[in-house]
């Protein structure tokens, strides 16, 4: 299994993204980070730490579960419903610039669901998209504003992101998908 990013590269990418965020957003006080569950949440938390380290400003962090907004929900007559987890956005998103954070950008369907979910919480001034890996193959007109690493992939491959907070270590892998689909 080829390694795309090790812990150091993940850390460097997140630090670079933090600098880009500061470059593009003059007033950090109107920013907020929202991570898409599951792995977008620890990434958002790390970006907050980076932003604080560079500027001393604390940006609020929320967690968004997009399960109830998925476009493939209820489309499969057989099989378990995807697990719904808690959304926690403990601040008003009205008139804020929201940095929506996810681990991998692929078809864009998760981000579409995330945008719809966010809009139900209010009217942000802007939403910008942060991803650790962009692997291409978009099925919707969605583009990331900040990318940790662009990786050309084939649709038979899958990109696995492992993070310290959930998996015990940081690693981004690319693997051939088993004959599942």
């Amino acid at each position, binding site marked *: 299994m080829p390694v795309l990013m090790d812990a150091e590269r993940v850390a460097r990418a997140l630090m670079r993204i933090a600098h880009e965020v500061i470059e593009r957003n003059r007033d950090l006080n109107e920013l907020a980070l929202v991570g898409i569950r599951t792995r977008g949440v620890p990434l958002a938390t790390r970006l907050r730490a980076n932003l604080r380290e560079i500027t001393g400003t604390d940006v609020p962090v929320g967690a968004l579960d997009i399960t109830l907004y998925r476009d493939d929900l209820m489309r499969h007559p057989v099989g378990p419903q995807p697990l719904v987890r808690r959304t926690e956005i403990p601040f008003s998103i009205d008139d804020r610039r929201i940095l929506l954070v996810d681990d991998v950008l692929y078809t864009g369907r998760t981000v579409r669901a995330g945008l719809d*979910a966010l809009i139900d919480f209010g009217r942000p001034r802007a939403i910008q998209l942060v991803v650790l890996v962009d692997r291409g193959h978009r099925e919707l007109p969605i583009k990331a504003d900040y990318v940790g690493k662009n990786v050309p992939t084939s649709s038979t491959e899958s990109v696995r992101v492992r993070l310290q907070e959930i998996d015990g270590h940081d690693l981004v892998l690319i693997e051939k998908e088993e004959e599942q689909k």
Partner: protein
Amino acid sequence: MNLQVANGPLGTAAARLRGKDLLGIAELTPAEILLVLDTAEAMREIAARPIKKVPALRGKTVINLFFEPSTRTRTSFEVAEKRLSADTLNISAGTSSVVKGETLADTALNLEAMSPDLMVVRHTSSGACHFLSRICRAGIINAGDGMHEHPTQALLDAFTIREHKKRLGGLKIAIVGDLLHSRVLRSNVLLLTKLDADVWVSGPPTLIPPGIAQLGVRVTTSIDEAVEGADVVMMLRIQLERMQGGYFPSLREYFTVFGLTSQRVRRAKPDVIIMHPGPMNRGVEIASEVADGACSVILEQVANGVAVRMAVLYLLAGGGEHEAAA
């Protein structure tokens, strides 16, 4: 603020409910019960949003078929369905063809011809939901059948207890009142014993069904003994409409012997929570000062009911194994 990285506080064991229906707690495994509670945990946050609606059940049709009066349960289901974007229809016995003599099976099959995805059913006969689940393709959710079960009430009670006590296993839970006619009791006893709570039940001897101890509960005719050191006290309604049989001399005497007063609450743990499934008879099974007191979580139960019913609707709306065979 610390965000939880993983799922709910107690983790999840099962990823699905088996089958297309929720007929009773008897049919659920402990893992399935925890799945409903964890999903409800996520659903509850939706009530705090400016737009209290998610698109999960868009295009699904849910019929609320109520053959018995209900305010809380029917409204709670309807709010839950609407928050999930389902299309809902309400049918109550008084305004339906039931008054013209149509049988339960015919009513259900005619409704089924309009292809609903789920039917939420309350009926005066025990077993009515089991019967409907056999003849209907739609998923059946039991909203109370006779003296048998009321599973969503037990699930919302468990949710409320877990929220306050962070666990269910090992808690002393006293359930007091009309044990004979109560479907809330039966569902609660089944659920709480499955999750290893120490359940005590108490009521007048005439209202204790024979053999109830076989469900794994401690039975006493002394409310004081049941409440002693309890973590949770759950009061059951004296069903005035079912009290023609002379089960006890008078409502006043009932209150004296079995009513929950603040003196009796003092026997319980200092952090006891007081529950009641509603509708309450103040001054019969519970004193007003207790119902409105600091330990009372009665209105939280109502709020949690919506989240728990959203969880059940969501988990069943996918169809379950039933359609896998088709």
